[in-house]
């Protein structure tokens, strides 16, 4: 297993690319930078594929995961402790999915960026950051223990910060970067606490040992509202996940993150990084499954976020922000899936979402590129004829995300809804909310399509010269489009001809199927699935029709509705005033404290006072002692002699005392 045994290569390549570009790229022409960046990521992708092949052929049949320790990073064994964190990488079915998604989509987006960023300044910087992100993301997904995972976790945070603030001359971009960073810190705080708790409980943070210990039947499953170790630990981990994956209440940074270049939004804030939270939850599903509460919280938060974000997305006019909110809401779906115990479905949705959301962003980027930087959909329209490829691919992506039959999103979303439905009894609130969200999704996505590509052009055609993007950008679009269609077919549900839930079975090595599935009989399950699928399709259709009616038939209607529903509209447009709320609740008090306490009292009086005091003291002492330093070397010599005398006296004192006695006598 040449590559699998040297899994670090997959990581190292992007790091290398990043370093080379970062250190030497500034003087190089774009072509060289491309070669380095694309070469490193492409090779990394190839290695990943090979590694996966080896894993599937050699390791997977044996039914265990591949795990290799490369070197000790932290090891307190020498000093008595037994805490070991190694640079250990592991590969199991879950990792396979993540690695392929990260490297594959990442590579495509690298290609796209060469076209999109061609005329930007700081070209090498951009690719250096992008490769750095790849490195950390791979560390995150390949890590075999929480600490190493956390390294990747923080690393992607850093990369995201750098890339959001890529246009650091634009104040809004810089602020957005800071916002993302700080909000993530809140989540990471929880994450670290979770790690501490886990270590304190199990004495290890290594996945295999930890989960082995956790799945030990001695641990009872903690029921509803029982706050045992598992519940607390899971909730703390989930807090981190919320930060990273922009769930309520920490989602606020993601929409602003759209300040970064569009490929960044596609790669980091849609396809890969933001799904890290889902990955962590799925990775530690054993812990979550031990706690009723945690699962419910995850499900509810996810569901709420999905609806909440979707509702905001309804009225946004900035094309990228719409997509951002849709991302948030889709992430909510994934967490919903995890919350109802259908981790497989969640991961599956993660994958499909990576495909079509990346595609959406890239296409949006292509649109913006075509419009010469224009992002407001109100100033677009009727582009479908001018930029055909972009239009078609984006349409495919839209169909996929809205869950049109046989598109990727269809299967994943249905799987989630089905799981949600099966999971709970009674009113099925989660399911219903999820369904509404699906409807809303269909609405705002088609609203985006119609506003952008159909209707009359609403821009000044004399100034804006719409033009199709170069193939370096369109190529990835096409490939991703293909994936958005066929990517779902891994998981053809068994009720369809030829479908055999391949994906679920594939992941079943990691996630044993939830009990509810076995509860129903085969046929009943199928009939239920079919019904739910039809319902979902119906919902999607409704959303589509509404959007069609509002934005193509009577374009003036939306304004009227907005006027008639003034308060609701305002709330939505202002995103439920969440940012203002946070500003009032957290930011301003902080500023006040830092200004009046930390600055005026602590810094000026205490710290500066101390420092200056020391300085003055030193000056005073110096003034008095200065006279010893006459500059006359002989005096210094005498001082040296005195020092020598003292030292020798100390050394030989015991034996010298009697002699002194003799002298005095």
């Amino acid at each position: 297993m040449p590559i699998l045994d040297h899994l670090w290569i997959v990581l190292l390549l992007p790091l290398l690319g990043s370093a080379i570009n970062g250190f030497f790229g500034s003087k190089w022409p774009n072509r060289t930078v491309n070669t380095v960046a694309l070469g490193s990521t492409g090779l990394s992708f190839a290695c990943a594929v090979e590694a996966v092949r080896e894993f599937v052929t050699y390791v997977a049949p044996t039914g265990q995961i591949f795990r290799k320790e490369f070197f000790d990073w932290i090891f307190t064994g020498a000093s008595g402790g037994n805490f070991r964190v190694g640079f250990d990488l592991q590969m199991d079915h879950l990792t396979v999915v993540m690695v392929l998604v990260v490297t594959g989509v990442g590579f495509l987006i690298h290609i796209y960026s060469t076209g999109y960023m061609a005329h930007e300044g700081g070209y090498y910087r951009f690719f250096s950051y992008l490769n750095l992100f790849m490195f950390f993301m791979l560390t995150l997904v390949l890590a075999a223990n929480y600490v190493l995972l956390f390294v990747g976790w923080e690393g992607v945070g850093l990369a995201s910060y750098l890339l959001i603030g890529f246009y650091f001359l634009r104040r809004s971009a810089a602020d957005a970067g800071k916002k993302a960073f700080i909000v993530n810190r809140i989540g990471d705080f929880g994450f670290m606490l979770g790690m501490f708790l886990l270590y304190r409980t199990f004495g290890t943070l290594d996945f295999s040992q930890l989960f082995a210990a956790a799945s030990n039947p001695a641990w009872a499953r903690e029921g509803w509202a029982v706050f045992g170790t598992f519940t607390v630990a899971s909730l703390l981990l989930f807090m981190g996940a919320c930060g990273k994956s922009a769930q309520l209440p920490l989602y606020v940074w993601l929409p602003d993150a759209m300040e970064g270049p569009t490929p960044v939004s596609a790669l980091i804030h849609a396809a890969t990084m933001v799904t890290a939270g889902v990955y962590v939850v799925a990775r530690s599903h054993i812990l979550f499954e031990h706690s009723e509460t945690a699962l419910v919280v995850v499900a509810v938060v996810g569901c709420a976020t999905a609806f909440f974000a979707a509702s905001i997305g309804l009225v946004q006019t900035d094309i990228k922000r719409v997509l951002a909110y849709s991302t948030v809401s889709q992430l909510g779906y994934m967490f919903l899936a995890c919350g109802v115990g259908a981790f497989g479905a969640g991961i599956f949705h993660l994958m499909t979402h990576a495909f079509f959301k990346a595609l959406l962003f890239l296409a949006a980027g292509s649109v913006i590129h075509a419009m010469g930087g224009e992002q407001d959909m109100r100033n677009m329209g009727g582009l479908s004829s001018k930029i055909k490829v972009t239009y078609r691919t984006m349409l495919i992506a839209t169909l996929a995300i809205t869950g049109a039959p046989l598109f990727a999103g269809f299967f994943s979303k249905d799987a989630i809804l089905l799981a949600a439905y099966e999971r709970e009894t009674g009113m099925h609130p989660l399911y219903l909310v999820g369904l509404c969200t699906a409807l809303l999704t269909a609405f705002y996505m088609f609203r985006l399509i119609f506003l952008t590509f159909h209707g009359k052009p609403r821009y000044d055609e004399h100034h804006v010269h719409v033009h199709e993007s170069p193939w370096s950008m369109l190529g990835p679009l096409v490939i991703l489009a293909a994936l958005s269609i066929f990517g779902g077919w891994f998981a053809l549900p068994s009720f369809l001809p030829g479908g055999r839930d391949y994906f679920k079975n594939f992941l079943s090595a990691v996630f044993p199927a939830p009990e509810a599935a076995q509860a129903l009989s085969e046929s009943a399950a199928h009939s239920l699935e079919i019904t739910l699928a039809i319902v979902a399709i119906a919902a999607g259709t409704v959303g589509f029709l509404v959007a069609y009616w509002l934005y193509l038939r009577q374009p003036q209607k939306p304004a009227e509705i907005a006027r008639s529903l003034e308060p609701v509209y305002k709330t939505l447009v202002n995103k439920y005033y969440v940012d203002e709320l946070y500003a009032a609740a957290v930011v301003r008090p902080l500023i006040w404290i830092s200004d009046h306490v930390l600055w005026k009292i602590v810094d000026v009086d205490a710290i500066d006072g101390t420092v200056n005091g020391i300085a003055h003291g030193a000056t005073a002492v110096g003034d008095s002692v200065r006279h010893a330093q006459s500059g006359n070397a002989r005096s210094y010599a005498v001082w040296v002699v005195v020092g020598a005398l003292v030292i020798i006296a100390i050394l030989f004192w015991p034996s010298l005392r009697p002699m002194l006695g003799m002298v005095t006598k």
Partner: protein
Amino acid sequence: MSAALLTFFALATLATVGALSLILQRHPIHSALSLIVVMVAIAGLYLLMGAEFVAAVQIIVYGGAIMVLFIFVIMLLNAGVEERTDFSKLAKFGGLPLALALTGLLAAAMVRHGSAIPNPDTPGALASTETLSTLLFTTFVYPFELTSFLILVAIMGALVLAQREKN
């Protein structure tokens, strides 16, 4: 009193007298000459202890290079009899007694503790040049390379100091 002991005392007296005259001579050249005497005497002591290589190096490097350098500089600067200034009161009153006290203290310490140190059983047996060099190039090779580097640095420093500033 064995021949070795006689030799030792002769050489020791020579060294001490040389050191004293280094202090008392007023002209740097005489001081330098007395220092050379001390060095030769010490080389003789090395021989007495059987450290012949060290003795040879002592004479070649100290006597043949370093002291020549000193005399060369004295000649070059045409240094005359030193002037006896006493700007430093500390040195004038405190210096001599303190330094003598240091001497006495050291000597006393050695007298009291020296007897604890074992005496060599076979004089000069170990000091074969070959073993010395083997040790130097195996165990102490890194320090050795370091000294070579040090010398390089010193050469550079001397060059920089020696060249007259262009103007």
